């Protein structure tokens, strides 16, 4: 039965990776447009609280997921107004969003602490789901997981196969030039920020509706920051985000197993692994940098104000 044990481990890894992947994919689109949103953690945790509250009130997981995404979107709209419309400093605004999101989520979720729900339903296809070794992994996940993988494909297609995606990448590369060409820099960036916020909110809702179906204050536990690191680790490419999410999710699961198995290594060291991996990726990126080109969106974090 080692195959089934392996499958169980893989299933938990995918489950741990999904929130990271969804939040990181949203942030990837934001950063590709040239905006650095450090408020992912706040948007995620607000999505978790709102999603759980709405799901409890309505009894519908779908309504909860939509509400979670909506809450992330609302908070990112505030971020967009600050940074894209008013051209405020992105780093300070992003940190403020994280603090605000953590605070708001506590308020929204206050009366739901300690409640428990059924976790989101898993896919069950007779025959397929029961396949030994692979059935649960491929045909027995919940809708969030499939949505996450659909996002990977959708974003990759959007960025490299559509005109709008090209415009978004161009704006992230050089907002002055694209503005001079008549592209709508601020509109595109605002939309990208909204998309990123909705993804972060959805990732948060996954935590409180599927991963651990309850609400606890600050339950994201730094996953928003891991998602941010993941975007850099993946050098701003969706497929690498997917691979990186599995790696980082794997590190999280490994940490739990290591603790259970009583390994000498402290769990804290293992939970630091994703960050160490990100630092390593940054070093490798700058060492192997192509002459003249840049891997990161060249306008990332730079405030844009249209000329007079």
């Amino acid at each position, binding site marked *: 039965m080692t195959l089934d044990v392996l499958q169980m481990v893989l299933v938990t890894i995918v489950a741990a990776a999904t929130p990271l992947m969804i939040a990181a994919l949203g942030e990837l689109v934001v950063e590709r447009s040239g905006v650095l949103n450090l408020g992912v953690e706040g948007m995620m945790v607000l999505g978790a609280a709102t999603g759980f509250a709405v799901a409890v009130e309505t009894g519908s997981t779908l309504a909860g997921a939509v509400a979670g995404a909506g809450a992330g979107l609302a908070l990112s709209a505030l971020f967009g107004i600050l940074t894209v419309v008013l051209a405020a400093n992105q780093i300070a605004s992003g940190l403020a969003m994280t603090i605000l999101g953590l605070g708001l989520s506590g308020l929204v979720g206050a009366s739901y602490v300690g409640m428990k729900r059924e976790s989101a339903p898993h896919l069950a296809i007779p025959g397929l789901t029961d396949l030994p070794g692979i059935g649960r992994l491929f045909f027995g996940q919940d809708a969030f997981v499939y949505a996450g993988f659909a996002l990977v494909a959708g974003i990759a297609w959007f960025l490299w196969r559509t005109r709008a995606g090209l415009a978004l990448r*161009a704006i992230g590369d050089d907002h002055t030039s694209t503005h*001079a*060409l*008549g592209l709508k820099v601020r509109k595109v960036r605002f939309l990208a920020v909204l998309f990123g916020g909705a993804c972060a909110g959805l990732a948060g809702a996954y935590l409180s509706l599927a991963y651990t179906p309850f609400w606890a204050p600050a339950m994201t536990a730094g996953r928003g920051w891991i998602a941010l690191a993941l975007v850099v680790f993946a050098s701003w490419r969706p497929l690498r985000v997917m691979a990186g999410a599995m790696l980082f999710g794997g590190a999280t699961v490994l940490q739990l197993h290591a603790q259970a198995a009583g390994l000498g290594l402290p769990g804290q060291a293992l939970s630091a692994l994703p960050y160490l991996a990100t630092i390593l990726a940054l070093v490798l990126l700058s060492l192997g940098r192509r002459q*003249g*080109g840049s891997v990161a*969106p*060249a306008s990332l974090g730079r405030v844009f104000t249209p000329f007079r």
Partner: protein
Amino acid sequence: MTDATPSPAPATPALAGQIGATPLFGAYGIVKRFGDFTANDGVDLEIRAGEIHALLGENGAGKSTLMKILYGLLEPTEGVVTHRGDIVKLANPEAARALGIGMVFQHFSLCENLTVAENIALVMPPDMSPKALREKMSTVGATYGLHLDPHRPVWSLSAGERQRIEIIRCLLQDPRLVILDEPTSVLTPGEAEGLFTVLERLRDEGRALLYISHRLDEVRRLCSRATILRGGKVVGACDPRQESARSLAAMMVGVQVGEVKPPSGMPLGAPRLVLSNLSLATSGLHGTALSDISLTVSGGEIVGIAGIAGNGQAELFDALSGEASAPEAGMVTLDGVPAGRLGITERRRHGACFVPEERNGHAAAPTLSLSDNALLSRHATAGLSRFGFLRNAAAKALAQRVIAAFDVRKAGPDPAAGTLSGGNLQKFLMGREIMAEPGILVVNQPTWGVDALAAAHIRQALLDLAGRGAALLVISQDLDELFEIAGRIAVLHDGTLSRAVPASETSREAVGLLMGGGGIESTPSSSAMEAMAHAH
């Protein structure tokens, strides 16, 4: 054209008879205000099909503003733009492109990390497939001799190739009017010739071209009509072919531009700046290594270094200024002192001064005041500090002396350096160093992006300094400038310096050939240079 009151078509009868009654595009009574500042003040401009129309003016005369209005990037406060006599509203660049207006920007509007094809696709109709785009690109490329690999990322291309993208991008939209903003400022003479051929061909196809340039020789060669702007107003119109470069410059600045006079017949002094076998490995990924550079600059002499940007100019400047240390002290000698291993301030103490190429961020800190900027380079040599404390009053007085001596125009008594126009900041920076009365002065691109009057002022100041016995090394891409002021000229190509030959014994063509690397790789540089010089 000459008066500033709005005067809609019909235009000059003589031209109207030849080319058609209504101009292709017209701008009448254009006023553009930014707060209190009026950038365009009742400007009229008519552009006809089949002509290359020059728009001349100093920095800040309002050329860019007018251009941006024509391309839909700015909306005029007052006035109208017409297309074949009908009033049109250019709300954005798409509207301008729809009317057949294309633009080749001076500072290329290209995304460096995208490919050539992607950059072009940005302005194409959204439904065009990548394949169709590549086919159109190669058609236009074949027609005009503009060849580009669609898959190359822009960062790997030279300035000339990047401009080719801009031009192809513009031509793919089959424009009726092409606006070119300082198109030759980054090109080698050879590349510029290629551009002129394309432009003449476009004109012969019946397109209109609006040509903006500081280089009056080009305007006289290419353009049949010119509109001259000064202080936001149209101050004149002429046929540049009938004018001299000097008379055009005089119209632009409103006064006669003094001809720069070299001090003649002065005997050269002793060698003051000596480079011997200077080699320097690249500092970064993008740098050019210097190899075996030897040069002697004597007192009273200006030696010019020509070359296309990126061939080691920045590295040579750094090695001279002390921003980069030479491998051996003896490779750079300042007035007999081996200075190759000395720092910048030490070199300044030995009587050398330096003006780098980048005004904002290298020569000056844009957010600091002019007096603080005076401190930055003169703290050690002008007594601006005592016991480690700054003497702000002395710095202010020094800044004021520079401002007065070099006619620096600015707002307020001691404004931030970044608020000055390019030409005025450059005058201040040149003045800051020249008034130190250096024995040795190294300048990189002394008049880059500076208008004619300020450029003449700067060049004269350099010649005067040499006349007082200083040794000057001027690195410049502008051949006209080098031939105007330099006694000897050498060419830097791929980190190698050709032998410095007297300017009177060489020609622009010979130097241009060396700039492109002609003759350097295969034969020893000095003999190639001599052969080139004698051939003309």
